[in-house]
Each structure stands twice: as structure tokens, then as C-alpha cells.
């Protein structure tokens, strides 16, 4: 292709059209969530909100999920809306209300727990499998990566029974453990490769200097494995924040609900003519904002983790 030819013109026309088509649903969801009810529910859609309102956000923030069925009660805003300040403090006292704030908090707890547990477990296992000598090394490695052959969703019935038996049903720790377990193949694989790529002389020198194994990992080798570590952390967050089926099946009370499942409660209430769509779009925005912020800053690790889990290069 020659520079400045009409080919380039078409190249950018096609690309920008595709970008607009792909980003449009996200843009549309966002502007729908800030439109006024009259503007939202009209047969003549506007492509930029004429009046901005954060009503729906107040509404879902203060909305009692355990009373999902009374959502249609007439003057909803008057009854339930609170000041922003109050909502803000509710967020830090999630026990007080069973709102989407509570679900948001639960999602954060589960994601954070998964990130921490996955990072610790995968770092140690990856280090041991890459560097140390030990018995049954290959068998252990193969065992750890077997979950890629059996998707967690096909084990949903026995998992339910086991979680019930050990008392982790309806419990956020249960979700953390499950997400971490199904993160193991990618996590251990990534960390093992990361540790393997570091010359072994570095570790040998540290041993001669009398550094303990734990200190070698934390002080010497881990700083050199930051890309691998970030990939694992980002992917753990991605898996945990976006999980639906485990959270949907294994958690049943409103106080323990995570964000993705809480969205269903909002969707159940209301009808076409009601404020339902405003709340759903606001809920969607709340649920994708954190992950899009992460994506903006850590894009390459997302790409690497998401495809690495598929390709296992």
C-alpha cells in the first residue's frame, strides 16, 4: 500500500466504523444510565443526554435487594432516596443495608481475596516447580494444570455437595477458594515460566551469601517477575469479578450476593414502562467501571492473561 493513497483512507474509515460499532453498546449503556426517565423511555432516542441525572445510581445504591418484589411502589424516589453522604457511609458499613453497595462490597472482597490467595499459592508453587529439586515434580505439575481439561461448570453438582459438607455454601470464602482453584493452571504456569527465565546463578549467589529461601523469593527473584505476577493478578481479578455461575448457584442470601447476581434482582423488578432500564444500565455501569479502569492501565496483562489461559504457549 502506498502512503496517502485512497487505500489508507478506506483503511481508517473501516477501522473507525468498527471501533464505533464495538464501543457503542458501552457508550449507550452509560448515557442511558444518566438520562432522565422521560428521555430514556422514548421512541425517539437521543445520542447525547439532554439532562443529566444520577437518580438511578441513588436508586440502586439504596435499593433493598431482599425486598426486590416491592420495586414497583409508586413514588419510589421520595421514599428511598437518601443523601449522597449517607450512601457513602453505607458503603463502608455494608452490614447496614442489603443494597447494591453491599453487593459491590462483596464483589470487591471476593476479587481481592482471590487475587491475594492466587498470588501467594501460585508464586510458591511456581517457584518450587521451576527452581527447586523435589520428588514427583513432573507429576505434581501435570496434576496442577489438569483443571484446564475439566471446566469448573461441569463439576457444579459435586461442588455444591462438597461446599455444603464443609460448610462453605453461601459463604464468600467458598467463592474465593473456588476461583483460586480454577486460576491455578494459568497462575502456576505463568509463575513457573517467569522464575525459569531468571538465570539460576542469581539464586546460587544468594544462597552462598546465606539468604533464606523465602527471602530469595521475596527480595531477589520476585522483583524480576513483575510482568508474570501482574498477569496472574489481573487475570485473577478478571475471573473473580466476572464469575456468574458459581456465585449464582452457591450463594443464596441477599447479604452475600455479588454484583453480577444482584443485577438480576434489579432486572426482575419493574416493567417496560417503569424505571427498570435506568436501574439496569446504572447497575451495569457500576459493574464494568472497575474492570475497565483496570483494563485502561494494565491492558497488556489482560491480553496476556486472557489469551495465555487459552493458548498455554
Amino acid at each position, binding site marked *: 500500500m502506498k502512503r496517502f493513497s485512497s487505500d489508507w483512507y478506506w483503511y481508517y474509515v473501516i477501522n473507525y466504523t468498527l471501533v464505533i460499532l464495538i464501543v457503542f453498546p458501552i457508550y449507550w449503556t452509560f448515557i442511558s444510565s444518566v438520562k432522565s426517565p422521560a428521555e430514556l423511555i422514548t421512541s425517539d432516542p437521543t445520542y447525547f443526554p439532554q439532562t443529566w441525572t444520577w437518580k438511578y445510581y441513588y436508586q440502586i445504591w439504596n435499593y433493598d435487594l431482599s425486598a426486590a418484589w416491592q420495586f414497583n411502589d409508586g413514588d419510589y424516589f421520595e421514599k428511598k432516596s437518601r443523601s449522597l453522604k449517607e450512601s457513602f457511609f453505607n458503603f463502608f458499613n455494608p452490614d447496614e443495608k442489603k443494597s447494591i453497595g453491599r453487593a459491590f462490597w462483596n464483589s470487591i472482597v471476593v476479587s481481592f481475596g482471590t487475587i491475594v490467595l492466587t498470588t501467594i499459592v501460585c508464586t510458591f508453587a511456581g517457584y518450587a516447580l521451576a527452581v527447586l529439586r523435589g520428588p514427583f515434580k513432573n507429576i505434581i505439575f501435570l496434576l496442577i494444570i489438569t483443571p484446564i481439561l475439566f471446566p469448573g*461448570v461441569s463439576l457444579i*453438582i459435586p461442588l455444591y455437595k462438597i461446599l455444603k459438607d464443609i460448610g462453605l455454601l453461601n459463604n464468600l470464602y467458598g467463592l474465593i477458594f473456588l476461583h*483460586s482453584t480454577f486460576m491455578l493452571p494459568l497462575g502456576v504456569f505463568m509463575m513457573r515460566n517467569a522464575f525459569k527465565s531468571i538465570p539460576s546463578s542469581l539464586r546460587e549467589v544468594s544462597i552462598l551469601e546465606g539468604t533464606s529461601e523465602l527471602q530469595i523469593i521475596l527480595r531477589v527473584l520476585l522483583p524480576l517477575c513483575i510482568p508474570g505476577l501482574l498477569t496472574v493478578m489481573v487475570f485473577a481479578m478478571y475471573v473473580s469479578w466476572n464469575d456468574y*455461575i458459581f456465585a449464582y448457584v452457591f450463594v443464596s442470601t441477599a447479604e452475600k450476593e455479588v454484583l453480577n447476581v444482584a443485577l438480576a434482582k434489579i432486572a426482575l423488578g419493574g416493567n417496560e414502562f417503569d424505571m427498570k432500564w435506568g436501574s439496569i444500565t446504572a447497575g451495569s455501569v457500576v459493574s464494568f467501571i472497575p474492570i475497565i479502569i483496570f*483494563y485502561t492501565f494494565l491492558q497488556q496483562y489482560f491480553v496476556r492473561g486472557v489469551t495465555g489461559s487459552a493458548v498455554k504457549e
Partner: protein
Amino acid sequence: MTFVRKEKIIFLLMVSPALLLLAIFFLWPLFNSFWISFHTWPMFGKPKWVGLDNYINTLNDPRFWDTLKFTTIYTFTATPMLFIVALITALLCNVRAWGTTFFRAMYFLPVVLSFATASYMWLWLYSELYGIIIYVLELFGFGGPGKNLNVWTTPTSSLWAVNTMVTWKFSGIQMIILIAGLQAIRDDYNEASTLMGASRWQTIWHVTLPLLRPSIALCLILCIAGGYQAYEQFLIMTQGGPQGSTRTILMHTTDLGFAFFKLGPAASVGIFVMIIIFVITAIQLRLFKPH
């Protein structure tokens, strides 16, 4: 204590958390899955051994075959859509030009959203009265004047509506795999074919695509394995409707297990799903062994 022995102990200590998680939340359920499937589980009292009865009942259950058939249809209609979009975006991003990094980032963006969120977003886009997609479709004359277009009334339109959402949501992963494959193709081939007078389309068709075959196969297999795990997109968008025509095999499993409390049959359906996905993934690993 010798140095080697100490190292072995440290090794075992370091892999034990991973093995513990694996044992409790993966290996134990895996074995339990078979154990449950050989028993009936009454509401009260002890489980009873019934041998292969659950499997035989599953194979004789029309709902099993209906959901399996639907899941297969979904998989083999969504896969080509995903693949074509992924191939187009990958070829567009593989050009050396200003802005490709930005385009790639934008094409990958929907991948990071969760299936649940994406489903709710598209439910709004498809909303019968105020959805923007419906609005655009009606502008083009679909549905006819005075009639409201509703994509959820027939099984076929429901399927294509969900397929469109899945294509939007998922083609980014396939695109990245294809880009990795494209970058591995040496420039010499393209240059040689251009020198020999081939047009750009001929180069793509006769040179690029054949060389890209391993990545293409990987994409297709991933799509197929993913298709059989379809769950939340149909649960949220169609609720299995209309008349249970869009229920996936996993919805069948969870319904049996948690709505009817038939754990034995549900576990046997789960094992069939496992076998299907296991075979597909095993083929995948077989084809793409590191050289």
C-alpha cells in the same frame, strides 16, 4: 539435615497449598461426580446405589437431547460469526500503520466485561419498546409499521440475538490469537507473492490463510469448547424461552440438580458435558503441543 533433604522439604511445603486447593475443590469433586452419578439421592435418608441407571435415564430423556441439540446449534452458529469478525479485525490490526494499537485495544475491550453485565446491556439494546437496535431495525423496515418487533418471540431470532452479543463480547480473544499467528508469518512470503503479481486479496487467500492454519484451528476449537459451556447469556437474555427452546445443556444440569433435586441424574449429565469438553480440549492440546 543435608542440603538436598532440606530443599525437598521446602519444595513440598511450597507446593502443598496448591495441592490442597486442588484436592479439595477439584479432585474430590471430580471423583464425587462419578460417585453421585451412580446413586439416587432421596430428599431424606441415605443415597442408594443404582449402577448405570442414571446414565440410561439421561440417554432416554428427550430434554437431554433437546438441550444438547440446542447447545450444538448455538455452538456451530456462533463459531463462524466469531471467527469471521475476529479474522477481519486481526487482518486490519496486522497492518503497519498509525493507530493499530488503539484499534486493537478497542476491539479487545468487550472481552473484559462479564457475560452477565454484557447480557444485561444487550437486553436493554434489544428492549422491545425502547431498544436502540430495535429502533434501527424498524428504521430499515423490519417488523412492519404499527407492529412492535420483539426478538425474543421466536427461537431463531432469540438465537441470533444472543449470537450477536456473544460475537461482540468474545471475538477479541480470537482476534488476539490470530494476530499472534499473523505476526509469526515472515514478511518474505507476502513480499514474494506481491512481487509475483498477486493482488492483496490473492495474497491473503493463497498465502496468509494457509500459513495461519494452526491459529485458525485453535480459534475454532476454543469457540467450540466455550460454546458447550454456554450458560449465563441464555439464562439472562432468554431465560430458556420461548417455550424452553433455548435451554443449554448446563441449564438442564442445574435445573435437574437444584430445581428438582435430582442430584444423580444431574451429575450424570455433568459427566456427559465433561466428556464432550474433555475430548475437544484434548484435541486442542494435541494439535498445539509446543514444538
